[in-house]
């Protein structure tokens, strides 16, 4: 994020593809109540009780930071330049298929490996609304939250999902998939504020009235 800028979650540069468009034909279930957000959780989205409708990309265990972005691409100038190569060692086609507002559902130890902050930044730049996994590697977890990427730990859902299906995330409450509810541990409000602001630096700038 450019110094001095105070943008939200950084989807504005994604060519204007909104989550609603990206998710058309995905058969999302409409929600009766709550603040319903389709697709990309644009600025102000991830408040407790808000609902994110999303399409699932399913990945396995131990998705490491070299899979998320191989070292050879780290020297590129911007995260935007690196974006097409996300997940390329595992599924070279994936980065081109992920649409803003989609979610990644993965197994255990997501983000293991190096401390490169580009890993969560790239996932965020792809427009991924949230990563749901059985567990996250420690440094990735901190880097993701501090860069404004929502992460949810859920032990059972990853074994149940099928790629391409839709799901509903009620932030801080539950995930609804095929009519079944999967409970999620709440994140404190001030952490949601960090995610909403687009990361720690922006959250602090906001707090200090800098934007």
């Amino acid at each position, binding site marked *: 994020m450019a110094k001095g800028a105070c943008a939200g979650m950084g989807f504005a540069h994604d060519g204007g593809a909104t989550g609603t468009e990206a998710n058309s034909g995905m058969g999302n279930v409409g929600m009766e109540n709550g603040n319903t957000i389709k697709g990309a959780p644009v600025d102000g989205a991830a408040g407790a009780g808000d609902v994110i409708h999303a399409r699932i990309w399913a990945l396995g265990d131990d998705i490491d930071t070299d899979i998320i972005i191989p070292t050879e691409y780290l020297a590129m100038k911007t995260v935007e330049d690196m974006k097409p190569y996300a997940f390329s060692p595992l599924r070279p086609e994936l980065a081109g298929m992920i649409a803003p507002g989609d979610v990644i559902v993965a197994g255990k130890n997501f983000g293991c490996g190096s401390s490169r902050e580009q890993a969560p930044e790239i996932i965020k730049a792809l427009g991924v609304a949230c990563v749901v996994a059985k567990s996250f590697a420690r440094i990735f977890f901190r880097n993701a939250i*501090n860069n404004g990427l929502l992460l949810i730990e859920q032990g059972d859902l990853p074994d149940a999902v099928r790629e391409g299906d839709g799901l509903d995330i009620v932030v801080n409450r539950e995930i609804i998939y095929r009519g079944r509810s999967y409970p999620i541990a709440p*994140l404190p409000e001030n*952490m949601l504020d960090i995610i909403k602001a687009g990361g*720690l*630096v922006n959250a*602090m700038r906001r707090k200090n009235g*800098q934007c």
Partner: protein
Amino acid sequence: MGLTAIEKIISNKVGHRVHGGDIVTVPVDRVMIHDIFIPFVADKFREMGFSKIWDPDRAVLIYDHLVPASQQDDVRHFHAGDAFAQEYGMAHVHRSDGICHQLMTEAGYVKPGDICFGTDSHTTTYGCVGAFSSGVGYTEMAAILGTGTMWVKVPQTIRVEIDGKLPDGVTAKDMILTLIGDLGADGATYCALEFAGGTVRDLSVAGRMTMANMAVEAGAKCAIFSPDEKTAAYCALDALTAEQAGIFGDVDADYVRFAGGPRPVMDGGAGRAGRLRRLDVKATAGMVGGEGGALRYRGEDFVPVMACPSQVDLIRPVSELAGLPIDQVFIGSCTNGRLEDLQAAAQVLRGGKVAPFVKLIVTPASVGIYRQAIADGTLGILSEAGAIITNPGCGLCCGRTGGILSDGERVVATNNRNFLGRMGTPKVEIYLASPVTAAKCALEGRI
């Protein structure tokens, strides 16, 4: 279900019971920033738009990695630090007093039950006095300086119980190296390492520091020793408060479970074949504290060990490595640069001479230790034996000051990392060991 020691510290601070995996925002008692990161912390702090430090008295700035400067650019860090400290009213600035992790407890900045963060991975050290302390990056440090709070995921705890008497010549360093070998360099990732048992109670605070310091080499977020009368004396407290005395792991807390216990290193433990395997299941009530609830060691089973090049978890008994010629020995660092470490080395070297062609470099961890070691004759003995005694600081451990090595050379060192290239070129072989083992190697000129 009971609580682990770390869960108790965090629960006390946030005012409700927390368990491993919970995410909470904690108030911070003390932060430490060192010379390497202060320019970046300062930049981020200003970028975030803060105009003051939440409580300047709780922030400590320590120059240690770059003191005295060995490269022209190093000086910039001192000027950036001094300017930041002056602008925001930080009084606790140590410019040449020793290593940050030594000073934080030695100078009384950390007390039992405190929550501390530092811009260095070895911030785990302050668990030696029963504090929760962990390393953070410079962006997070800037946010803490502005707010006095930080979010944490409460770590799960691996409980390590050690009972029995250590054999002669075996130290805290040998215990923690053995444990790292058993767990692997990532075996305790995101976890707290909670140490308990008679052997641990018998350790001095200095020995506990050595173990807490290296917890991060097994990937741990923090380490914790229950505060006791030794802790109180070290921290200059008349007595522990009820809350501080209550910082211990309950037997029915939810500990990380393992498939089987450790094997003695002489029996093939601490190697890849003997590595411990964590079970991916939560303990259930009634089962905890039983088999798998704690890693149990017998003090008598420990032997002098070394971490071999270039992995900190490649642990072998010294007896298996005996005979390898060496070029240099380094005794110092935040792991093993304390008075009792220097005394242990002096006891080995008393009346003897360092082997020809071997350089023995001794770096006390702080000015206080340096003066004590002069006063009690320790440095005199080491000097008589041929040691090169340097100024207190990080010294050779971070490969920036006198004593760097070159291709094909072998060093026995008491610090915490033997990564490729850490103490010179990538073709230097670094063996990590206790001060006792290191001093013996210096005498012999070989392992």
